[in-house]
């Protein structure tokens, strides 16, 4: 895979016109820039093998629907993650099964660097988190993990999910607060109703 000078373009300004004649060139560039991080994100959610298929499907869907991408409405990264998020929903049962079973695997490597120094403590905490994530609504889980694992900001997450940025922020706040208290949130009709 080649690094191109487009790498220097900030992600939020990466809003290419996808209707041009050089389809392979433009999609090659998109793939080179976004496939690896997208794969890492998806692999954390559903495992490496399923992530291979999802990355492949995401770019093929994007290719087929390239005329629907409107650069004025958002960065191309949000659009790609939006497609991936829709595809991911089909694997949600697989994801939930893994989360309910505890963590798929723990990052043992990081434990030397953790403040919760005791491994037993730390592993129990991660397992508890996994189970709590399984209790979240799909939308809540997407907001949390698009932020935490995919590293998107609130504006991008709003673009991915097609919801207002204010909703993303309040949802994130509510979900994080509930997880910190160690019990999963219950989805509510209005984000404002969530103070218990």
């Amino acid at each position, binding site marked *: 895979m080649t690094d191109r000078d487009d790498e220097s373009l900030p992600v939020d300004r990466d809003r290419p016109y996808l209707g041009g004649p050089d389809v392979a060139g433009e999609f*090659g560039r998109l793939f080179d820039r976004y496939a690896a991080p997208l794969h890492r994100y998806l692999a954390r959610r559903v495992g490496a093998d399923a992530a291979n298929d999802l990355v492949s499907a995401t770019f093929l869907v994007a290719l087929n629907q390239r005329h629907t991408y409107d650069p004025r409405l958002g960065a191309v990264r949000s659009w790609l993650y939006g497609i991936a998020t829709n595809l991911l929903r089909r694997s949600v049962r697989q994801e939930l099964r893994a989360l309910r079973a505890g963590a798929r695997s723990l990052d043992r490597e990081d434990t030397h660097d953790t403040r919760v120094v005791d491994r037993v403590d730390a592993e129990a905490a991660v397992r508890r988190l996994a189970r709590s994530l399984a209790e979240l609504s799909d939308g809540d889980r997407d907001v949390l993990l698009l932020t935490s694992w995919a590293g998107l900001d609130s504006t991008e997450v709003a673009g991915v999910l097609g919801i207002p940025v204010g909703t993303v922020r309040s949802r994130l706040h509510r979900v994080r607060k509930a997880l910190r208290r160690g019990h999963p949130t219950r989805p509510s009709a209005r984000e404002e109703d969530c103070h218990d």
Partner: protein
Amino acid sequence: MTDGDPRELWSDDDLDHALERLNPIPRTDPRTLAGLRAELMAAAGASAVEKGKSMGMKKRWIASAAAVVAVAAGVLVAQTVSFNGNPPTASAAAAELNSVADRVRATDPPVGPGQYTYVGTRAWYTATGSDTGAELLYAYLEENRTELWVPPVFEQEWMQRRATGEKKWIFSSEAELKEKGIEIPDRPHSNGERRAPCGDFFANSDEERCKGEVGWQKPSPQFIASLPKDAKQLHDRIRHDTQGRGKGPDLEFLVYVADFLRSGVVPADTRANLYRALAMVPTMVVTDRAANLDGRTGVAFGVEVDGERREIIIDVSTGQFIGERQIAGDDRPGIPEGTVTAYSSVRTAVVDKIGTTPSQ
């Protein structure tokens, strides 16, 4: 930041840490992505269709087949990736590890009835705090002292004593945070003293004690006895157990070895064997000939992935494991590449009573 609400078990930072550790990023084989790219290019009507497509199909097949044979041939898969293009260049580290293995004393000092193995660890771990936008607010190394008394019979009572101590600032400072009105949240340390059979200090109930998982991270005598006595087979066993974990096969290999050695209960013959198994790890290199851990120096053997490095430090004159270090790559916001983000030193001794500390 935590707002001090007593109902909150975790600070934001703790939550982020748990999120970070859940479902770690598996290694992405660049060849898999190359295959996917070739398929996309074929669909996009690129000129290099034929070449790309055949490559894509082949790699896809390898990717799915790999999952099936991973358990049986994990070692082969891992080594193929590591050797990719380059011959192993770590022979110096391998030679050194093998000679260290020869220098490990054949037996450990005996632990008599009523006596305990004392394992004292002084570790410095990084604690960080970020705002909700994930921008780093502070980072410091915090001293953690853990003392462990291991009975001669695994199922007898163990004791652990833990305390946190000094801070060494990496990013920002106490004064700066005070000025900004940022409060450092209390960490969920398990400071204090606790006793339990089998070292199961954190079991939910008495019934669950001695039923917890044993393994590299918590070696029981049965687990240690079950390990292969042949170095190559031991190497293969670690490859098998680390398959698919962590940031890279060689790094994870070292992490497991460090976990095991850190326990302080690995007998001399197993330790020597472990060093020989470690010598077979192709990307293992000597990273520092005089690594200093709180005044104790040794040779650092390390593996690096994406700039992040893990090391174990060995006193090469005796073969004693004396500690470990972790060095940041370029993927930690606000923390310069090359920063030591964790290090620890460990010493073991035989003591006559539970709770007593050996003389220095």
